Every structure is written in structure tokens, then in C-alpha cells.
């Protein structure tokens, strides 16, 4: 797999040089956070075969928890992020316990409805700031030592977090747990007949995916210094599905590529074409479902397999 290694090497060099290339670090960090969100989602959809339609609930709960602790309680960045992750894990567990019993469409509908519930909690609860969300989240410091005001320093930390999560997901998927998960995705009755407690595996995958999504959410809160209703809205859930689908479900790098394309499109297209962004994203969605189900990375992998390796 020489080619793949070379690709990642190039990408790594590029990523390390971002601040030097004059690219806006805040934009890159936002991209990395959404890439993490998409990778977490892909764990559930691509490797676990479960379509959740309300994943924004986990991204958002963690974002709000982190924001609230950092503003109202004055927590520093790292503890606030950890607490946010714990919050999304808890929410993931609660939602998972209800949703796991069902499959397919019903599973998707339950996640959708429960995500709406969480949206309304975020809207109505007295400490979440309602329509305004929570603003002015301070950057804080790294364990009380280094202040995080510098965009560049924060960028490298977020990059490190991204790489760590990416490698962690790879590890999980290649582990025995991951193998069983994929087996359940491919043929559930057979997995049951082999004696595996299918629901336990699925629940664990669900909670893991929710927790990692939460990690992305808390990082995003520290980077952009706010948590708002956009984080828990239905649109955000739809976006992460698109990123995963576009990039390639069930691949590792797919969600990252998908997130890169979608976030960049939204950021730069909206300046050029304004409101057409939604239409374009919808059209891309439709096109992907009809003709491009393997996604970018999947299609490239298939193309590489079909050409003789030089």
C-alpha cells in the first residue's frame, strides 16, 4: 500500500504547514472538528450499519455542556471538554438504550425524535441561552499552563486530537470488537446464531460513536467560542450524513474527505452563490444516493483496484 502511505504523508505535511501557508486556522479547525464528527458517525453507520438520523444531539449536548461549564462555572478548557464528552456519552447511552431495540427505519425514526427532544431541551432550558445559545466561551489554557488565545497553537492541538481520534477509530474497527460489529452489520441472524449478544455490541458502538461525536462538539465550542442551536438542529444531523455518504461509508478516510468538501463548500460557496448552497448540497446528496454510493474514497479505492498496480 505504498500509494496510500505517500498520500497520508503528503497530507500530514500539508496539515502541519497550514499556518505557514496563510490559510485561516479557525476555518481549518472547524473543518477538523467536523471531520471528527463525521468519522465518529461513520463508526456507527459505515461499520455498524446503523443509520442514526439525530447524531447532532450528541455533538450539540457536548458543545452545550462544555460551553456552560466554561462560562457559567469558569472551568478551564481541558476539564470542560472532558465533561462535555462525558455528557455526550451519557446522552448516547440514554438514547441508545431506547433506540437499540429497533432496526432499520424505526431505529432512524427514534433517533430523529429523540434528537428533536434534545433540541427542545436546549431551546427551553434556562441555562442554555435559548435562541442565543451560549456565547463568549473563553479559550482558557492547556492544563493551566499555556494560554490558548493563539489560533496557531490551538490549531496544532486540534490537529493532534483529530489524529488521535482517527487512529483510535482504526484501532477499534480492527479489534475483535470491530470485527464482530462488522459481522453483525453484514448478517445479523448469523451473528446471533454464533452466540453473540448482538444488542450489547450495537449499544456499545452507539455509545462510542456518540462519545466521539461529543469530543468533536466540545473542541468546536472551544475553537469557535460558542454553542448554539445550530449544533443540535436537524440540519446538522443531515450534514454529517452527507459528509459520510459523500466521502465513502465504511472507509476510514471517507468521512474526512466528505467533511472537507462540505465544510469548504459551505464556507466559500456561500460567498459566491449565497442561498444556492442548500440546493447544491441537496443535489449532491441526491446524486450520491443515485450514482455515487461508494463515495469519494470508496470510488477511488475501486478505481485503484481495477487498474494494475504499478
Amino acid at each position, binding site marked *: 500500500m505504498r500509494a496510500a502511505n505517500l498520500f497520508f504523508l503528503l497530507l500530514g505535511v500539508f496539515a502541519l504547514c497550514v499556518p505557514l501557508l496563510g490559510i485561516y486556522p479557525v476555518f481549518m479547525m472547524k473543518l477538523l472538528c467536523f471531520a471528527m464528527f463525521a468519522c465518529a458517525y461513520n463508526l456507527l453507520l459505515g461499520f455498524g450499519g446503523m*443509520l442514526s*438520523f439525530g447524531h447532532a444531539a450528541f455533538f450539540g449536548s457536548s458543545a452545550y455542556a462544555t460551553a456552560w461549564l466554561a462560562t457559567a462555572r469558569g472551568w478551564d478548557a481541558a476539564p470542560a471538554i472532558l465533561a462535555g464528552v462525558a455528557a455526550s456519552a451519557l446522552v448516547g447511552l440514554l438514547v441508545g438504550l*431506547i433506540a437499540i*431495540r*429497533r432496526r*432499520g*427505519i*424505526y431505529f*432512524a*425514526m*427514534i433517533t*430523529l*425524535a*429523540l434528537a*428533536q*427532544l434534545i433540541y*427542545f431541551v436546549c431551546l*427551553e432550558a434556562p441555562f442554555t441561552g435559548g435562541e442565543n445559545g451560549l456565547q463568549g466561551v473563553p479559550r482558557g489554557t492547556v492544563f493551566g499552563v499555556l494560554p490558548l488565545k493563539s489560533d496557531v497553537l490551538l490549531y496544532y492541538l486540534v490537529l493532534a486530537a483529530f489524529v488521535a481520534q482517527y487512529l483510535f477509530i482504526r484501532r477499534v474497527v480492527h479489534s475483535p470488537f470491530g470485527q464482530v460489529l462488522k459481522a453483525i452489520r453484514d448478517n445479523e441472524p448469523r451473528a446471533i446464531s454464533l452466540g453473540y449478544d448482538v444488542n450489547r455490541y450495537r449499544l456499545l458502538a452507539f455509545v462510542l460513536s456518540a462519545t466521539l461525536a461529543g469530543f468533536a462538539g466540545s473542541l468546536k465550542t472551544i475553537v469557535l467560542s460558542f454553542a448554539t442551536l445550530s449544533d443540535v438542529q*436537524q440540519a446538522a444531523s*443531515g450534514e454529517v*450524513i452527507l459528509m459520510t*455518504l459523500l466521502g465513502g461509508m465504511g472507509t476510514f478516510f471517507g468521512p474526512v474527505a466528505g467533511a472537507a468538501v462540505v465544510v469548504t463548500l459551505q464556507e466559500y460557496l456561500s460567498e459566491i452563490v449565497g*442561498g*444556492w*448552497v*442548500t*440546493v*447544491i*448540497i*441537496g*443535489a*449532491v*446528496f*441526491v446524486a*450520491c*444516493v*443515485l450514482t455515487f*454510493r461508494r463515495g469519494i474514497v470508496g470510488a477511488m479505492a475501486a478505481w485503484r483496484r481495477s487498474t494494475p498496480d504499478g
Partner: protein
Amino acid sequence: MTEIFGVPVAVILGQLMLGLVNGSFYAMLSLGLAVIFGLMGVVNFAHGAFYALGAFAALLSLQHLGINYWAALVLSPLLIGLLGIASERLLLRHIYQLEPLYGLLLTFGMALVIEGLLHQYFGASGQSYPVPSALRGVFNLGFMILPIYRAWVILVSMVVCFSVWYIIECTRLGGTLRAATENAPLLQAFGVNVPLLVAVTYGGGVALAALAGVLSAPVILVSPQMGSSLVIVVFAVVVIGGMGSILGAVVSGLSLGVIEGFTKVIYPEASNIVVFLIMALVLIVRPAGLFGKE
């Protein structure tokens, strides 16, 4: 005046009345969804978008072509139904052999495109559609003033829901539809043009959504996002009723509208989520829905 829970009876009755009006919309929309899911196994995420299209068709035809409300009640569903048939032929039929999740995703994408286009051309703020002159005025019910138009909405949706139920359960056409749901290849072997049936069914379900759109135009502002928040609630309604059940869709739609109205009286902040809470409960206790068959 008398009070229950510290709330005047007049207010309770008024909210229940409004809840019945909302419930009528829920019933019509979930009816279309249930029909489409029952026959095609597709969860039509674009239902809300077609609902908005129906309202916009009525609005635009009034503004530019002078077509009045009564004509729009017929023409808009017809037009949008044809659009639905076209989308089915062009887009949906490619994904039937795939997993159901792709149907969800495809219709989700369709909804984004439709709503995005509406947003582009009409902006985010809504436009108002006038109440037809024959239906202006109010009924003084004593406990509240009920605009005549809202009573009309309840009437129309009852008639439509009952007619659709009747057609599906008691006529030959309905029988054919139900047969297609159970065993499409066998039905095709009997000489029925099943693909055409499917296309027309999708068009019909979508037309129901458009009709709801026209009905709602004088009540709420016609805006591009009018369908997107509604469609999630309607999904919950359909799940509660049982995903393929026509009767379930109508009954749950009406009851949930009323329950929502009641919640607005005792605990207004929860009125937005009461439907989802009930859905979660129903799914735990009776996973197939109240009227559904597993």
C-alpha cells in the same frame, strides 16, 4: 367562569378546538406518508417539501394568474401530484432494490433541493395568502371566536381522510393497492401494471400533502421552511399510528393535535415535544405502533 387546573374552561376548549385544526393537518399529511410507506417502503422525507410546494403553487397562481382559492384546491394537488410522479419515475425507482436507508436519504436530499430552491426565490420570510371571501368571518362559539375558515379545514380534512380510507379499504382499486403491498411480483404476474401503480401512488400521496398545503395557506404564512418543522412531527405521528396503517395515521394525527392543544394549556413549553415523548413511549411498549402490524 369555571376553572380546571386553574385555567378557565373557555381557554381549554379553545385550545382543544385549535388542536383539532392542527390535528386535521397532521391527519392529512400522515395519511399521505402512510400510503407511500405502506406501498413503497419509502419514508418520504420530501413530504414536507411537497406540502410547501402545494402552498406556493396556490400563492403564485393567485398572484400571477389570478387563480382563486377554489380552483387552487384542485389544481395545486394535481400539479404537485404530477411532479411527484415525475420524481418517482426519474429518481425513486432506482433505489427500490437497495436498502431502505437509501430511500430515506434520497428523499431527504430531494427535500433539501426543493426547499433550497424555494428559499432562493422567495426568501425566508413568509407571505400571506388571503382567506377566500366565502369563508371569512367567525363563528361565535361562546367560549371562543372560531374563524369560519378553520372550521372548513376540519371539515375538508375529515372528508378527504375518510374518502381515502374508503377507497383503500373498500374499493377494488384499493384492493389492488393492498395486494401490491403484499406481493408485487405476483400481482404483476396477474397483469397489473405495478410500476404505474407505484408511480401513481406516490403522486397521490404527494398530492395529499399539496392539498394540505393549499388548505394551510390562509392560516399560516407561506414560507419555504413551513414543511420542514412539520414533517418531523408528522413522522412521529405516523410511527405512533403504525407505519403502514391508514386508520392509524388518521386517528393518531387527530388525537395528537388535540393532545398538543391540551398540553398548550397546562404546560405550554412542552407542547412542542409531547408528540416525540409519546412516540418514544409507544415504541418501547408497542413497537409496531398503535394500529400497525409488524
